[in-house]
Every structure is written in C-alpha cells, then in structure tokens.
C-alpha cells in the first residue's frame, strides 16, 4: 500500500508539472525547453525556507511566487526572440540554472539539499493534498481555455502578428502565460521536494525538462485531458514495470519522435480523429 501511495503522489506531481507547462506551450504556443528549472526554483525555495523554520504552506506559496517572478523575467526574453530562438533560450535558462546552483555552497552545490522537513500530513494526507491540487489545476486549465484569456491565447498561438493587428496586447498575454505556467511549476517543484525530501541540481536537468515536455506533446499540446492522462501514465509506467526503467528514456525518445512523425497533435489528436471517423461513418451510413 505504501508503494502505491508513493506512486500516486509522484503521478499527481507530474500532472501538475505537465499542466503547468501546458499553459505555456499548449495554450499560448510558446515553446519552452527549460521548464524543469522552474520546478527547481520552487523546490529549492521551499526546501530552504522550511529548513529555516517557515511553515510548509507559506514556503509553498513563496516558491510559487519565486518561480513565477523568475518565469516572468524569462518571459521578457520570449518577447524579444521568436520561435526557434525561444526554444534555445529557454533551454539555455535551464542549463544556466544548473550551472549556477551547482556552484552555490548555500544551496548545497553538487550535493544538493537533504533532510527537507516533512509537511506533517502523513503519507495519505500528502497524497490527498497533491491530488487535490492537481485536480484544481486541471479544472482551472479547463476554465481558462473557455475564458476570453484562453480565446486570446488561441489567437496568439496561431499568429502573433495578426493578433497584434486586431488589437491584442500580445506581449502582456505571453507574460501572463509564462507567469502562470512557471508559478505552477514552482508548486510542482515544492511538492516534489517535500515528497522525496532530497533535491540536487540533477533532479531538474534537461532530461527532466524534456520528460515534462514529452508528457505535454504526447498527450496533445493544449488538451487538458490528453496532457493529464499522458502525465499520469508516463510518470508511473516505468516504475510499475521495473524492467522498463532501464529502457525508459529509449521509450520516451522513441515515442516523442514517432508522435511527431505520425500525429503531431498527440493522443488527443488521434482520439479526435478516431471520433470523427466513427461519426463520419455513422453519418455516411444514415445519410446515403
């Protein structure tokens, strides 16, 4: 039972991380290859604060704020560069985060931070908290998609220049997407830190950024359900079947490549087309 609880907790945290990236990549159409760095900012902030005696709730809130602020600063870069450059810049931010943290003694350097305080909710209590937060973020995402902000994100993702020429303040909308996405990444990072109780720079490296991105892409960028399911499955799949763990990255890499080749809109795209085919057949059957 203990094992299942810890699996589900990790799954919940992965869902929060993937949904947070989905706000930036899926909703607003801004590619980011350095998302794990913001999980890292959140994790380190919360770890340092709780070790200094700050209560868990306040530390988590602070880690969201911290990640959101740094994310907004990175968002400013996104205003200056476009698509291809943005991919490389966000990747650079990820590497820069690692490079800086590794050399800071007060952050534990290469060794990381151990003995991060337990929030005192018990295993089950913590799981419930994580799942509640994941569900809240999913609901918020669905609401956001339907709001005028989501509508505007669609336009920005489609064609920035044209959005600008129908009176949209594209820059502000992008910054909001970055601020929200990275703040929730900070939340995921803080939850991760208090779950594992140990963090080091490598926990937030490029491979982690790509893992989160692959959850979003495989689920279907922008699709809240697709991303949630993909994050849930991909996060626990390798642990459930230990023998896969050795081939985990091969599976991720291969899946990413294949999905891009055959269905760039991910599982939700496959599902959508499948539904259309069924509907189309019914229509044809009844119509002709």
């Amino acid at each position: 039972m203990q094992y299942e609880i810890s699996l589900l907790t990790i799954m919940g945290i992965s869902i929060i991380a993937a949904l947070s990236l989905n706000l930036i990549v899926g909703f607003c159409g801004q590619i980011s290859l350095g998302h794990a760095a913001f999980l890292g900012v959140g994790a380190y902030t919360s770890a340092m604060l709780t070790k200094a005696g700050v209560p868990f709730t306040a530390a988590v809130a602070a880690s969201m704020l911290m990640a959101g602020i740094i994310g907004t600063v990175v968002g400013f870069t996104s205003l200056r560069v476009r698509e291809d450059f943005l991919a490389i810049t966000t990747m650079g931010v990820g590497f820069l985060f690692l490079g800086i943290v590794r050399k800071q003694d007060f952050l534990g350097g290469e060794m990381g931070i151990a003995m991060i305080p337990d929030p005192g909710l018990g295993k089950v209590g913590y799981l419930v908290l994580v799942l509640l937060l994941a569900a809240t973020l999913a609901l918020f995402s669905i609401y956001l998609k339907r709001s005028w902000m989501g509508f505007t994100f669609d336009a920005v993702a489609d064609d920035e220049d044209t959005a600008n020429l129908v009176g949209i303040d594209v820059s502000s909308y992008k910054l909001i997407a970055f601020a929200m996405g990275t703040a929730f990444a900070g939340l995921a990072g803080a939850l991760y830190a208090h779950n594992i109780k140990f963090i080091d720079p490598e926990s937030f490296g490029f491979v982690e950024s790509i893992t989160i991105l692959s959850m979003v892409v495989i689920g279907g960028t922008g699709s809240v359900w697709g991303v949630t399911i993909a994050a849930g499955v991909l996060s626990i799949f390798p642990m459930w079947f230990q023998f896969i763990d050795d081939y985990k990255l091969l599976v991720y890499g291969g899946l990413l490549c294949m999905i891009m080749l055959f269905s760039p809109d991910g599982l939700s795209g496959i599902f959508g087309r499948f539904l259309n085919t069924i509907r189309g057949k019914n229509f044809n059957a009844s119509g002709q």
Partner: protein
Amino acid sequence: MLQVNNVTVVYGGVTAVMDVSFKVKDAEVMGLIGPNGAGKTTLMRVITGTVKPVQGTVFLESTPLEGKPPHKRIRLGIGLSQQIVHPFKSMTVLENVAFVAGHGKTGHPVMSVFRHSRAKEKQKAMEILHVLGIDKVAEAKPENLPLGYLKRLEVARAIALEPKILLLDEPLAGLNQLEARQLADKLLELNQLGHTILLIEHNLGEVIRICDQLVVIDNGMKIGQGEPHKVMDDAVVRSAYLGEGHHAAS
C-alpha cells in the same frame, strides 16, 4: 478623420515613401492607388505602426499616433484588413470574427480571465458575416475555404473592431471579376452605413466606381489627388501610373 502629414520612410538607404500627406474625411471612401512598389502598403504600415517613418506624423481624429504600438492604434479605432489573408487557423470563421468582436473583453489582459460568455460576440459576428454574405460558412475552418471567402473574412474581422476607419489593403486582389464587384458593392454598403474607408486597390475599375477621392502614389511620392475621374484624366498620373501602353489602348 485620418491625417497623414509629411511621412517619409527609408528602408536600408532606399526611400520608400517621400514626404506624403493626405487626409481622409469622415464617411468617405478614399482610394490609395499606384503601381506595384509605389509605397502604398508601406504607408498603410506607417498608419498601423508596424513601420516607423523617419519623418512625419499620423493623426486619428485629433489623437497623434506617434510612439504607440500597433495594438494600441488598432484599439483607438483602426480596422485593418491585410493584403495577404491571415485567418486564425485553429478557429472557425465565426470564431475568427467573434474573437475580434470581443475586443472589449480582451482589452485588459488580466481581467480577460474572468470573462467567459461568448454569446453576444457570436451573435454580432454572425450579423457581420451576414452583411458580407459569408454567413453560410460560419462554422467552417478557414483552411478549407477559397480565397474569395477569406478576403471577406479579413474585412469582417476589421469591421468587428467597430473601428472609426477601415484600412483595406487590396481586399479585391485575387478575386474574379464577379467576386470583386460583389465585395466592392459590400464596401459601398458599409460606407453607406457610416464607415469611413481607406482603400488600397489595384482594380482600377472598382476603385473609380466606389471611391469618393483618390490619392495616387508613384515611386514613394504623391503625384495626384482628387475625384476619381479628374485624377485619372491628369496627364502626369496617366503616364506615370498607367504607362504608355494603357494610353495607346484607350
């Protein structure tokens, strides 16, 4: 309504527009014509703010537009339809127009998250589509539509902003004669409903038919202005713009 004063634009050492001034009056259809590369689209971009002039000013009513980014100028009351159609591809035709019709709800980025009803905007969008005669394809995705529809969608989006002035960059280009005539008629209708229009257009027949005033540009310089028939009879305009070939043919 719109005033362009002494605008000069230089691109990498080449003067694209040279000291051009003109005024568009309320409720008027003004045609801006000239051969390819004369600087018409550049002037349009100076007005919307995507190109910065080295000299000159633009006023919308009495508001100077200098230093304002494009989205702010648009919101002051400029509806733009671009020469190359740029529909939002993930949206249906109706959503394209409804999105723009909701400009009041997207004006403040943070507040936009608290607004979610789209009913009014869809209704308004439907009315605009009806005026332009493309309400039948309201639910279609733009990528499946012929150019004639997309050109009208561009105009529909510009109208959805409820602008003080419509800037239309070659709305008739790429359309066949019948489609062009129909869309030109729609523009006249819009004008009669009270819209002020600045029209860049190559289709001279339609321009002369629907415009109240013409400004002619060649090589970045204004070479004529006035009522369509008078302007077209001007010798300078005829030789510069229409060329000898046209002269001989007529």
